[in-house]
């Protein structure tokens, strides 16, 4: 009987707990302060973000606007796969992309077995860890992040936040409980495994490659600087 199990477990836990009032508990928790965050590598959020994406086995590109992004995507896919086919999620910003500028043939919808590459638009990105954040919901099929060979993510430069904690600030700003996403996916690299003799293999279940396009008003040399930082960090390991 679950009800009996519940009350027994609660009784035992209560017996071992300090039985403080909610207000005291809140104050005690507040006094614990905040978690230290990773030290910044890079002079600004965008450089730090891209350097950490590279450290997470991602590839990066920087574009100034949607048309450049479409062109970048087109050449990325053509160079790598001689293909112009691209699976596109339902984010309204993706619907408004000038796909023709990149010579692309988009298919809108959710990934099926066999789809090669998909593009998602990140809700936000985190500089501290080099992660992109995707919310489930009406527009972003989770399968598009998880089933394709090559996952491409567009990040608006203005959506790059400093730390993991900032993610929750953004989520808490969403109005009501029902508008909070069912799933929050923090993605920080291609799907990987080291389960066979500790040998790192990419593409365990999902993407073998992870490509991040940072779009917006950023200095031209930001990608070069990010590569430099990632290189020097890798050497010092």
């Amino acid at each position, binding site marked *: 009987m679950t009800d009996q199990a519940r009350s027994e477990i609660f009784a035992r836990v209560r017996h071992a707990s300090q039985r403080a009032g909610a207000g005291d508990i809140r104050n005690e928790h507040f006094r614990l302060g905040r978690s230290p965050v990773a030290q910044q590598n890079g002079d600004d959020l965008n450089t730090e973000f891209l350097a950490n994406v590279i450290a997470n086995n991602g590839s990066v590109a920087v574009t100034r606007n949607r048309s450049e992004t479409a062109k970048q995507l087109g050449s990325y896919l053509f160079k790598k796969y001689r293909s112009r086919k691209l699976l596109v999620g339902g984010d309204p910003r993706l619907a408004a992309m000038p796909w023709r500028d990149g010579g692309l043939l988009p298919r809108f919808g959710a990934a099926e077995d066999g789809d090669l590459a998909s593009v998602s638009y990140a809700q936000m990105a985190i500089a501290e860890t080099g992660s992109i954040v995707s919310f489930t919901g009406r527009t972003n099929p989770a399968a598009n992040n998880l089933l394709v060979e090559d996952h491409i993510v567009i990040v608006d430069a203005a959506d790059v936040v400093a730390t993991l904690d900032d993610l929750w600030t953004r989520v808490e700003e969403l109005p009501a409980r029902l508008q909070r996403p069912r799933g929050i996916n923090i993605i*920080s690299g291609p799907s990987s495994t080291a389960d066979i*003799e500790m040998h790192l293999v990419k593409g365990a279940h999902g993407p073998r490659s992870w490509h991040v396009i940072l779009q917006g008003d950023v200095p031209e040399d930001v990608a070069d600087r990010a590569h430099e930082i990632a290189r020097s960090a890798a050497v010092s390991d």
Partner: protein
Amino acid sequence: MKLESANFLDQADNALADARRTVARDKLGVYSPNKRTAAVESFGDFDGLREHVHAVRQHSLDHLDHYLSRFEEEALANGNSVHFARDGEEMNDIVLDICRSANARKVAKGKSMVSEETELNEHLQNAGLEVIETDLGEYIIQIAGEKPSHITAPALHKPEDEIRELFLDKHSLGDRELDTPEELVSEARSVLREHFLSADVGIIGSNALVAENGYSMLVTNEGNGDLCANLPKVLVICTTIERVLPTARDAMAVLRLLARSTTGQSITCYSSFYSGPAREDDIDGPLETHIVLLDNRRSEVLASDYQEILQCIRCGACMNHCPVYINAGGHAYGSVYPGPMGSVLTPLLNSLEEASVLPNACTSCGRCEEVCPANIGLPDLLRDLRHEENRAKISAPRWRRGIKWHAWLSRQPWLYHFFTNLGVSLLNRLGRKTGYLSRLPFASGWTSEREFPVPQKNTFMQQYKVMTERKND
């Protein structure tokens, strides 16, 4: 799970004799400390982070009744069904009921140590369900019919050629070459993909439960857990009561510690938070979600002197740094949880009688405590368990007599120093020529395998005396 801890010594002997399998452990013992150190250094204030998480975890355990009930309230409001299970059997029955009422035939499972603890797979399979482990390591040992040997790298003990033979034998895919780890992973990927797409129920574990908003955190590198959480129509999260944290930001602090301590990554490839079932307009996600909260004696541990072990975040750093684990291997422990954390947890979740050998599988070197992200005093907890073993007269009378004599001797400093001086000068004289001894009375276990180095000059206390005198001069 059936404990086989009593045979630790024999199992460790077997592990050491199998040269092919020691390679992977030696690799783990060298690489993972290096990777962890690099990750810790690049973070900055890692010790500050450990202290912070330790304080948060302690606070959560001090007020677990408050946070558990808050989590339940929020999780229900998010649309989940919340179940409580006193023991493994109860958890297994709850999960089976959920599968039955969903008319499920196939279950896709993400990695969950809790389900290993309760032997959920066997329970579901005995009821006629098809259960597929989807973490590559777990999948390998599932089709091999073996048990995990490490909490984060379950198939650490399987050499590549054994995995190749296993795949060629179990997957009927005709003639093919599987020369590289990449090809092996690729094959498992295509086999498992079909299961993901056809599973009726997904079962995952949880790395943290957030009391303030009812979200559950899931961390993987493969992304298999997320596939289990998003594709099947029913999702079951099997976890334990002590996983609850007050806030989402506290979960982020754990996230900062976890991957750095495990693999030396700054964060795992997929770190996700799930709140409950899909909403009306959502294009995907499970229609029904269940959270099963298992106790299985954790509430007893909470009230005991061993409460600290409940702060464990299951990163595996203690075993990666443990000389006993690296040599003996995970299977020697005969328990789901091996290594230092397992040697504390196993006797507590089962009984000291069945697992008393585990707290003795320790050299008291203290490395596990140095690297434990939750700052758990593992060597102290292991020593306390050994004390209890002695008090409860579980160990052999010969051992207890020896310990008693040694305790008495240690309390007579002049006699203790007399005997150690005597011992050191005797050994010095015996091994004067070579600097080592190849035979020793009462220590043939040591000298049968290697030479015993003769102590240099004099005892520690004599040297200490000289040093402090010099310092005071």
